[in-house]
Each structure stands twice: as C-alpha cells, then as structure tokens.
C-alpha cells in the first residue's frame, strides 16, 4: 500500500487536499489497522489527494486528558500542533472519534485551527459530490445496527452521517433501544480502554452487546476503533462471532466496492 506522508509531499512541493490523521489505534491495533486500510482504499478510489504524518504523528492526548493528566495532554497537543502548523495543514480527516473530538474542539484553544472531519462525514461528502459511488449489492437487505460512538454522537452531535452511509448500502438499518442521543457507551471512553473496570455486576460492553443482539443484526456497524474492539469482544463473549460481524462503516463501504 503506497501511503504518502506529509514529509514526502512537502519535499516535492505538493500540498494534499486533506491530512488523514490515523491515530494510535489505527496505527498499531491489528483490528483497527484494517479499518485504516479500508479507508485508505476508499480515499484512493475517490481520487482524494491525501497524506499521513506517519512517524511524525503522536497520540492526540485524549486518553491522557480524560485520565486527568492535563499536562501530558497539552504537551502532546502542542507537539502535534507544531508539526501540523509547520505543514500548513488546513483540513484533517480521521477514523477515530476521540482524535476527531480532541483535534476539532480542544486543539483550537492551543493554537491548532483546522477543519476536522470524521471519516463518516468525509465519506458522505465524497458520495454527495459524486467523487465516490456505491453499488448496493453486497449488503442489500442485510440487517445492520449502528452503535453510536459517544465522542461522535453526544459529544459532537454527529448522528446522521454514519446512518446515511448504511442506508446508501441498501442495507436495512435497525436501531437499538438506546440510540443516538440516548446511545449507550461501549465502555471504552474516558481512558477505561486501558484499565480494568471498577467492581460491578457486569461489563459495559456486554450490556451494550446485548442491546445490539436484541435487534437481531447480521452486522453491528461501528465508527470508532475502540467501540469496535469492545463490541467484538462482546460478540465473542456471547459466542456469536460466527453469525454476527462487527465492522467499521469504512470497511462496509470498501467491501461493497470490492476493494
């Protein structure tokens, strides 16, 4: 896969349309890397000129901030902003709602002002502009339920873009009893991803998976690498991994396009 970096484009005197912010999960987590690749394939198909920061990218600082380490967060933010401003970045797209939220909302106060889009918003725009087309075939009539990531939904009021894309696949979108504004968390946010849960009588991801299973889906669609992990674990816990797939919206689209 040939993925241009900002450094290499800069050396050639070129400026991409958009920076693809990959994020830590998208870079290192085996499951999330598949989402990253699926999204890159879609970008290539649509002929979008993009680049990544590659080794110049560093953690956005979201988990540090949510864990209470404001100092570490701001160090990360300021370092990243310095790199991005150095390249004159104007537009950023990312497949991680946590990076999306942090870059969009918390970087401006520290000198990083960019137009930041979540990949579902960006893909929807590509479809609307006719730069990307979708054949419905693969998922026609399939029951797909969508799990709202907290940091995309409630945190930033993006509910429609991912749903729009699922409908464009000609799939049957079935909603869970808790969706959109009242969507239940997968359990990973606020740095919970990196620690054991406190004592309780259930894991949050199991509760959410049960809600998803109530809709009798063939696919649980996610739009966040962390939600993806949590829901995948939940489905495995219920021994349903043979029947139900947990897939990112970008993966659904790239599969529909046979990429």
């Amino acid at each position, binding site marked *: 896969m040939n993925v241009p970096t900002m450094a290499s484009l800069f050396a050639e005197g070129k400026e991409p349309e958009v920076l693809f912010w990959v994020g830590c999960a998208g870079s290192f987590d085996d499951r999330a*890397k598949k989402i990253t690749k699926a999204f890159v394939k879609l970008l290539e198909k649509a002929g979008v000129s993009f680049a990544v920061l590659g080794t110049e990218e560093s953690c956005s600082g979201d*988990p540090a901030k949510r864990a209470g380490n404001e100092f570490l967060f701001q160090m990360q933010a300021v370092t990243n902003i310095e790199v991005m401003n150095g390249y004159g970045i104007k537009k950023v797209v990312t497949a991680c709602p946590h990076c999306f939220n942090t870059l969009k909302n918390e970087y401006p106060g520290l000198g990083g002002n960019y137009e930041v889009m979540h990949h579902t918003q960006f893909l929807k725009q590509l479809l609307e502009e006719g730069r990307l087309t979708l054949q419905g075939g693969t998922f026609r009539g399939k029951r797909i339920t969508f799990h709202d990531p907290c940091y995309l939904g409630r945190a930033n009021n993006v509910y429609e873009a991912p749903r729009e894309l699922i409908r464009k696949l000609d799939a049957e979108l079935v909603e869970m009893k808790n969706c959109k504004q*009242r969507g239940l968390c997968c359990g990973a946010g606020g740095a919970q991803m990196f*620690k054991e849960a406190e004592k309780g009588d259930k894991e949050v991801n199991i509760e959410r998976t049960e809600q998803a299973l109530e809709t009798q889906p063939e696919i649980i669609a996610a739009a966040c690498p962390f939600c993806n992990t949590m829901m995948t674990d939940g489905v495995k816990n219920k021994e349903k991994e043979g029947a139900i797939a947990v897939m990112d919206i970008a993966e659904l689209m790239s599969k529909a396009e046979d990429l």
Partner: protein
Amino acid sequence: MEYLPNILFAVLLIAGIGYFTRNVKKLRRNIMLGRDIDLSDNKPQRWKNMMRIALGQSKMVVRPIAGLMHIIVYLGFIIINIEVLEIIIDGLLGTHRVFAFMGGFYDFLIASFEILALLVIVAVVVFWLRRNALKLARFVKPEMKGWPKNDANWILYIELILMALFLTMNASDLQLQRMEVAHYTEAGSFPVSQWITPLFEGMSASTVVLIERSAWWLHIAGILFFLNYLYYSKHLHILLAFPNTYFGNLKPKGQFSNNDAVTKEVRLMMDPNADPFAAPAEDATPPDKFGASDVKDLKWVQLLSAYTCTECGRCTSECPANQTGKKLSPRKIMMDTRDRLEEVGRNMDKNKGTFVDDGKQLLDDYITREELWACTSCNACVEACPVSIDPLSIIMDMRQYLVMEQSAAPAELNAMMGNIENNGAPWPFNQMDRLNWASETA
C-alpha cells in the same frame, strides 16, 4: 383590634420573606466560593436555552409520562400563584377577593385555578405512587435513602395540602356567598370546589366563616413555609433551574476545557528561548492547585448546579457505569457536592464568615476514588439532565487533582500515560513504527 388581622398578616409576610432573603444571601455566598469562570458570552443563545429548557421544559418530555405530569404541576404552581397576589393584597388591606371587579375574567381565572388544582392533585398522587408503590429504579438508589427520599415525599404532601386548602377555601367561600353573608360578595366560578360545598350546608354562618378563614390563613402560611423550605430541599430547582440553564454549557459536549495554568507551564517548557532565571512575569501568580479536591476548587457554575439538582436520577439511570452495578452515580456526585458545600457554609456561619479547616474535603470524605475512576466520560448524564447540569465536569476536575497533585492514577493508567510520554502512543509501540501498517500485507 380591628386591624389585628392585617398586622398579623404583615408580620407573617415579613417574617416569611425575610427568612427567605437571608437564605438566598447564604446561597449566593456559598456559590461564590467557587472559582471564577466568565460566562457572560453569547447572551441571546443563553436566553434561548433558558426559555426552552427551563420555561419550556424541553428535556422533560424525553420521558413522556413523567414529563407531562411535571408540566401540569409546574404550570399549576406558577399560575395558581397569581392567586397568591390577591391573597397578599386582601391580607394587607383587609379586603376580600379584591380582583373580583374583573367580572367574567375573574370567574375565568378562578375556574382555571381550580381545574389546575385538581390536575395537580392527580399528578401529585401519581408521583407519590411512582416513588412509593411502584418504586421506580431511579428513585430507590442508595443515595436516595433517608432525607432525599423524605424530602421528595414531603414536597408532594405539602403540595397536596396546599391544593386541598385552596379548594376548601373556595368551597366555603361559595357557601358563604350563597348564604349572602356580609363581606362575601358573589365572585368567582368554582367548577371543582362546588362539589365540596354541599359538605357545609346546614352549618351556621359563623362555622363556615371559621372554616373559610382557617383555610385562607393556613393556605398563605403554607405557601410562606414552602418558600422557606426550598433552601433545604431539592425543590430549590424551581428557582435555580433558570440561572442554571442560562449558564449551561454552550460548547460541544466533548470539548473539555483546557486548563490555562497548565498551558502557561507547557508553553514555558516548549519555548527553547525561555530563560528559566528570568524575573517572573507580572501575571506569574503561584501555580494554582490543579483540579479539584474540595468544593472551593470547583467553578461557581458547578456549585450553582449542585444546588439546582432535582435529584431526579435521569443522569444515573442513563449512566453506563451505574447500569452495570458500579458505585458511580452522577446524581450522587451532585448531591455530595451540595452536601459538602452546605457543610462548608455552616462552618463559615459558625466562625464569623471565615472557613476554619475541618479536616474534610469533597474527595474521599464524600466522593470516593472508585466512583471517579468508573466514569467513561460518555456524556449520557449531561445529555439526560433536564436542567443542564454537567456532573462529568466535576468528575474530570477531581481526576485532574488525583493525577496532577497526587499522582494517584490506577497503575494501568500510569502505564498508559508512561507510554504516551515515551512513545507517543498509549501502548508500548515505537513511534518510528507508526506507518508500518501501510507496508504490512493482510
């Protein structure tokens, strides 16, 4: 002697309002103990939010049954209070039904008050059943034991009594009007209380007057009592919902504020030209305490919210941590904050207005670390709150204190943060491998 009732009434009124004013002052002082935050921006949007959320109750109807009944009680409460204006004038001047000159419109007003009073009674009974017979999950959580539960019931009893007194007053008045007793001129229309009037038939005029006067006095005394009960109750929200929704957060919910004190330090560290031995700049106040361990470290708007909380538990019932049996309950976060703030306030009252260290704080003595670390920062509580309270902001401020002042994060989080510091990722991967995915097949 003729003016005795008027004087008595004036004394009652002044005492009632005087004590209330004293409590409002205390409330203000306590809220102002919080850290400063400038919320004077965006006035039009703030007014709109207040109109929509507090006056229009837009968040209440998310749960349609409770929402509808709450609107009835709320409207009843506000509208019936127009009647209080008349009662106050009558009480001070010794008149009777001073607004009666409005004729047909007066009849209409009284009739609507009566119908509302009846609806309020129905709603109050249903509310009571929901709390005490159906025992809805959100009303029986651990933090609701004792006073919070009694408080909620007391409010319902007081409302019931006030409405009953109002209707009794009208019913006996109607009887006196029918008996053409002097002073009781024909006025008003009584679609509800006319059904109570038959109870008074056959009684002597003086007995009915006694009943009417007793109901009248108890009603106004009850209202003044209720006014002063507010400060000690979750019912304070009927007043504070307005400022709290006005000052509510306007930014996206995912945007947590950046700590400016930290920004200063970070800038200094990042700037290679900064002279570490340079004389401190003018605004170089000694570094604030990072985050919050007690109520005074919170912002005033968070303290206002603590007093505003209705203890409805909508936040807690949407909380993923609480739903899965963890100790965290966002409602408890707000109730603890209020309880501690009240404790600090009482401490100041006792010590001539200055706080004398009592060896306690919000952290540990009220809110445990276990609760704080169970939060997923999902914002479900913030979304659910009908009066724009943000319990999550308090949780985050307290985590900030734990990590930055005490280095007391759970070990796994320390490992995660160590990784970010050293490799720029929460996992132990090398930053130089960040693009490896592009060349990996499969």
